[in-house]
């Protein structure tokens, strides 16, 4: 027994132990000379973030945002994707204020699908919105509306945008408001609105009414009917009506009913989806 110990185990232990200690010292020396300060909190926050890397916060990705949160540059609430619980857990972990959470949704402010909008000549080229606008402003008649080639839908990290009849439509129950589509759209027709807003003006053309009317049946004519109905909830800039999203009270479906927009540019999101899908079943249910 002691023979085995002295001839095998002891030398092995001494040898390996000695080597281990030696290498440990070497590593220690290197670690001292090449020391880098890193903040473990960045990693912690990164883990707590959803990891969608959507860039909705304006940073290059979740880890970049985490760094800015730790540095105090941004509040955790700036992340559009995180749920309020996630945000508060990050805030708790860092012991800071969560900041105001901006729950927002994207809306494609255009109703000009294939049936509604004049389509000028046949288009032959790259099927991508930003490329299409470079060719004489794209194939649709209106130079402010949705081009409908689905660049936003392809880029949406959450699959919330669908192209129906050459028009991008947002499924708001899937949308988290990251804003990727807003950055992609060459026409700027997609807007981020408060998540609770249900009424939108589905037109983006600031031209005079008759000019718009020539190219699109569902354009906003700028008749100010909505503004006359409630100047608190609606406004008009140029010849284009808009919902005042920062107002104290947001318009409801009943308001839309009462106004009765002559062209149908003013709609609830639900009704818009119904019209576009031509099938009320696809519209989000009330309980969602």
């Amino acid at each position, binding site marked *: 027994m002691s023979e085995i110990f002295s001839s095998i185990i002891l030398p092995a232990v001494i040898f390996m132990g000695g080597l281990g200690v030696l290498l440990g010292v070497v590593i220690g020396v290197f670690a001292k000379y090449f020391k880098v300060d890193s903040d473990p909190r960045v990693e912690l926050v990164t883990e707590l973030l959803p990891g969608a890397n959507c860039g909705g916060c304006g940073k290059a990705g979740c880890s970049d945002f985490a760094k800015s949160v730790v540095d105090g540059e941004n509040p955790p609430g700036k992340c559009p994707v995180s749920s309020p619980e996630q945000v508060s857990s990050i805030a708790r972990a860092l012991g800071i204020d969560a900041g105001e959470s901006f729950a927002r949704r994207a809306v494609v402010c255009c109703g000009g699908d294939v049936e509604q909008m004049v389509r000028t000549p046949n288009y032959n*080229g790259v099927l991508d919105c*930003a*490329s299409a606008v*470079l060719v*004489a402003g794209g194939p649709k008649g209106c130079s402010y509306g949705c081009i409908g080639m689905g660049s936003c839908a392809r880029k949406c990290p959450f699959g919330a945008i669908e192209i129906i009849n050459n028009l991008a439509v947002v499924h708001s129950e899937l949308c988290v408001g990251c804003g990727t589509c807003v950055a992609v759209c060459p026409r700027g027709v997609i807007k981020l609105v408060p998540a609770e807003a249900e009424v939108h003006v589905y037109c983006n053309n600031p*031209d005079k009414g008759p000019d718009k009317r020539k190219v699109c049946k569902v354009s906003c004519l700028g008749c100010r009917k909505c503004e006359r109905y409630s100047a608190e909830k609606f406004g008009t800039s140029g010849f284009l009506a808009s919902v005042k999203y920062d107002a104290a009270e947001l318009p409801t479906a009943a308001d839309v009913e009462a106004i009765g927009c002559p062209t149908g540019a003013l709609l609830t999101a639900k009704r818009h989806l119904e019209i576009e899908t031509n099938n009320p079943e696809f519209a989000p249910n009330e309980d969602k």
Partner: protein
Amino acid sequence: MKINNNAVLSFKGGIHPSGNGKDLTSAKAVQTAPLMERYFVLLGQNAGKAPEPVVNKGDVVKKYQLIAQASGFVSANLHAPTSGTVGGLVTVPGPMGVPAQAIEIVSDNLDEAVEPMESIDWRNSDSKTILDRIARCGLVGMGGASFPTHVKLSPPPDKVIDTLIFNGAECEPYLTADHRLMVEAPRKVLEGAAIVGKILGVENIFIGIEVNKADAITELQTIADGYGVKIVPLQVQYPQGSEKQLIDAITGREVRSGGLPMDAGCVVQNVGTAKAVYDAVVGGIPLIERVVTVTGEVVAEPGNWLLRIGTPVMKVIELAKGVTDDPGKLILGGPMMGFAQKSYDVPVSKNTSGILLLSKADAVNYGSGSCIRCGRCVSACPMHLVPCLLGCAIESERYDLAAQNHVMDCLECGACAYVCPAHRPLIQHLRRAKSEIRRRSQKK
């Protein structure tokens, strides 16, 4: 200098479009168009800032009268193409496909002109007087970029300009407007060239002409010496008329990436501009008309027309006796770099060199096929880029890769897309990348 004993010069790269359609109109003398009922003078006809209208709806104007005033240095005046009343500021289809603002002039059919400006004895005047006249007359480059001429002719004092080149290459297929101009008004072109030479104080004045315009070359060569201008025959090779390639062909200098011709000591002007300079300086007439080639296999009577700025394209097609078949494409400019139009209501502007109606069969049909790396675009690119790689990178939205591979140096001349056997929409990709990269660098 590459110039020696009438050698036919050229650059490296480029293409030789087959059956280039010039025979349709190259022998057709320029006809003067009759008066139209209405003219739509686009406001944004020049590179830079659009001029400010100085007339109101209902005003009575006379031919040559100023109707829009340049709003800043890089801007150009606009003048009434005929006498009549101002119909107001209207929205018409613009040459870039998007609606544009234009001043409508309703003709009174009298075509009364205001008193012309007095002729300048340019040989004994200083540059400033001549430049002022050019600016007053609203001259812009008539080759396509429509950069205000007075700006181009006022290089910063630290740039030494020793060579002045006039572009009579007209390398675009189908177009013969410059060709006819050189054949029919050689003295005006040459004198205009000499005036520009005087402004810049340059002795070396060249007019580069592709050898397929033999009559223009002989016509000009016989009288060019009297004006101190040298005629340079160039090979028939597209894009011979591109500034950088023209400078390379004639002087052997390379304009550095991102630089302007003046960085290589050169100024390049179109021969049409030379004629307009003559009209402005000697004739005292502002720029209200230009020669336009109206052509295409489906046009009943293709030809060259002297058109007032603001003439709607549909009216021009009527002048050409309509069409024999429905065209597949309406293009303002040449088939290589011109812009496809949505509407026939677009008016002629100062840089419209041609109105081209392509039949469906002649127009390219872009496909979605993959690149087979045949490399033809690489040998065709006059900027020596690798368009096929750029195309693939841009399709995958790798703009960083595209930028690394010098996409910003692309001229958008279309040589790559012309030779592509897969008919890939390369130029559209390249434009997309350029606009995207520009947008991103602005953001930063």
